[in-house]
């Protein structure tokens, strides 16, 4: 087993880093916030022109057929700059799901749309739970030669910018996966704390939907596909931690107090060093887990990454001092992201509990 990145991987990552440094700076993020947390032009560039979302789409569906490590590397770069694009929802969550559980023409068409740069979202009934399907599901019924869905999904991440939304719903007494065109659905914007990745409430009232799974949703395949989303969420958090640490280092290298730069205070140095140690720990686990897709490693990586993402943002606000508490400086954007993702697919303690259950047997 080799954990060295290939030169292709390094090239892809570095290009992404360069692009986002250029296109997702502080001012651009502010504009995206005013636009509801979405940068349509940037999305066009990375989705349609650069084909980021094609990375994990199989070659037979018009994608590049690359692996989870590539997805993780791109997600990490997105996290580093809080890129206001639905890359994670589209390429890391929707695409693997479609690839794993959709069948026939629907699979080809939907994946081709993603590979071509359309955004997609998934309407999980319980995105905060370790099992995101563990909530109330919408209900689908046959309608004409298609389906109609009823129900409310409280929070669909990146729902507003999606071209279509995947909706797990109950149908014929079982679980099924549907695709709903954004234009057919009602989405109500939510007032979330993450200003750069909006969520929306999805209201389905007899909404036209296409069933995309074969007969019955393969729950095992569904869960396996979700591993990509869990892994890349951790990668994104690692990137966010690194991004906000870098921002902090740049600030404190310049900012003087008591005739010295803040960076020259040893207590500050040690705290930054500790953050780096924690970031490297989480990053190594993400990269390692990307190879075997071991669910426990991914759960552990998710726990470590969400913790360090919060810690790094917390330290950024603290070490920026007064200005760290102002809207104008960027640390709070990372702080918001860190908290908004801290309880996604389960909290850090719930993720670690999966590991404990495996090692020690289920809790009493």
């Amino acid at each position, binding site marked *: 087993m080799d954990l060295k990145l290939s030169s292709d991987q390094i090239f892809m990552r570095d290009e992404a880093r360069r692009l986002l440094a250029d296109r997702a700076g502080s001012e651009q993020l502010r504009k995206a916030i005013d636009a509801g947390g979405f940068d349509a032009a940037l999305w066009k560039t990375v989705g349609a022109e650069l084909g980021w979302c094609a990375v994990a789409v199989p070659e037979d569906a018009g994608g590049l057929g690359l692996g989870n490590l590539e997805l993780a590397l791109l997600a990490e770069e997105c996290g580093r700059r809080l890129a206001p694009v639905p890359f994670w929802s589209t390429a890391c969550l929707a695409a693997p799901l479609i690839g794993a559980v959709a069948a026939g023409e629907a699979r080809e068409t939907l994946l081709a749309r993603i590979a071509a740069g359309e955004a997609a979202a998934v309407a999980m009934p319980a995105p905060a739970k370790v099992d995101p399907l563990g909530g109330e599901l919408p209900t689908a019924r046959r309608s004409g030669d298609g389906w109609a869905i009823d129900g409310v999904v409280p929070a669909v991440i990146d729902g507003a910018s999606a071209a279509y939304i995947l909706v797990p719903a109950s149908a014929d007494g079982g679980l099924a996966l549907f695709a709903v065109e954004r234009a057919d659905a009602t989405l109500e914007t939510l007032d979330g704390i993450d200003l750069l990745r909006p969520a929306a409430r999805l209201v389905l009232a007899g909404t036209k939907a296409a069933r995309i799974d074969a007969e019955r949703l393969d729950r095992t395949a569904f869960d396996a596909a979700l591993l990509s989303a869990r892994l890349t969420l951790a990668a994104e958090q690692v990137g966010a931690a690194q991004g906000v640490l870098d921002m902090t280092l740049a600030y404190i290298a310049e900012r003087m107090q008591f005739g010295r730069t803040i960076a020259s205070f040893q207590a500050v140095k040690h705290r930054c060093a500790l953050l780096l140690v924690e970031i490297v720990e989480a990053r190594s686990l993400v990269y390692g887990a990307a190879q075997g897709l071991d669910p426990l490693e991914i759960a552990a990586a998710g726990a470590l990454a969400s913790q360090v993402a919060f810690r790094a943002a917390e330290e950024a606000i603290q070490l920026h001092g007064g200005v760290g508490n102002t809207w104008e400086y960027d640390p709070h954007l990372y702080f918001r992201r860190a908290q908004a993702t801290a309880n996604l697919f389960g909290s850090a*303690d719930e993720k670690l509990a999966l590991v404990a259950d495996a090692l020690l047997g289920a809790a009493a």
Partner: protein
Amino acid sequence: MSLELFRAEIAGWMAANLTGRFAPLVDRGHAGDGDALPELRKEWERRLAEGGWTCPGWPREHGGRGLSVAEQVVFQEEYARAGGPGRLGHIGEGLLGPTLIAFGNEDQKRRFLPGIREGREFWAQGYSEPDAGSDLANIRTRARRDPQTGDWQVTGQKVWTSLAHLSDWIFVLARCEEGSVGPKGLIFLLMKLDQPGVEIRPIRQIGGGAEFNSTFFDDARAKAGDVVGAPGDGWKIGMALLGFERGISTLGQQMGFARELELIVGIARENGAAARPAIRARIARAWAGLRAMRYMAMRMLANDPEPQVQLESLGYKYHWSNWHRDLGRLGMDVLGFSGAIANDDPRVEKLRQLFFFTRADTVYGGTNEIQLNIIAERGLGMPKEPRGPGNMGKA
């Protein structure tokens, strides 16, 4: 009067007054919500004054009630328990008033204390500057004496001037001796905010609120008679003022903390978070920290002459601010994902504000880093942190 009777009296007064027209003020106007309902809160200050509840700790000769420490604690506790709103008069009552009583001349006391006591005049604080935060002595706002009038002409920028846009006056630390550095050559001035050459701009905070301001002075004036102490005494007076900040109000603050913790406990029981061992442990730890805080404050307030207690009290600000910051996160984690994504429950908005605003607790009034330096150096006798070679032009 026994403390218990006194307690009942306050509770009764609050119940009778914080109602009707004032009912919307319950639990409002606290940190993160500081600019809520300003006009009604100014009225509330006057109502308090009529009831004799402004400045209860001031000596009687200055219009206070001369309450004992124990009585003041009871007042703070009952005020908080009743959900009394954030005090717009706090800076005047708790900071400037005691400073004037200690250092002001008779004329100043006569002119300023009544306005504070009667809830008519509100004060803002002009200390921090963009390059004088933790390093407060690095103040660059200049005050030049006008040889004609004896007035002081002030030019510079103050930041974190809390509620300046709702205040009438501001006290300002400025540099009155050209070429002086550090704590020398400073002056403590009282200035009207409504005058030419003063501009107040809001600072938007990370939670979205704007209860702080930047206040810009461009040859604005402080009258000759509005210098507290002598020119050059600014640092001494300014630091003494900060000393008044600690103290009694801390127990009222803790009552507020207890209410926040109760809110979080209630939500945890309701939404199932109470079943998670990590949440249980954090809630229990928060409870322990709050109880400890209470006893810490009581040890401090007992005016224990023991040097040990004095040293220990150096850690109080660090303790409460970090406790509160952690509580802010705990609240959001108890809410979970739904609290981060939507705020259809008013309690969510309250806990969100707590989450954001408590970040400032560990920065304002002495950052964590400064607090730890102070504890190490004064409390533990460790070597002082060396000042750098200086680079006054930078940053």
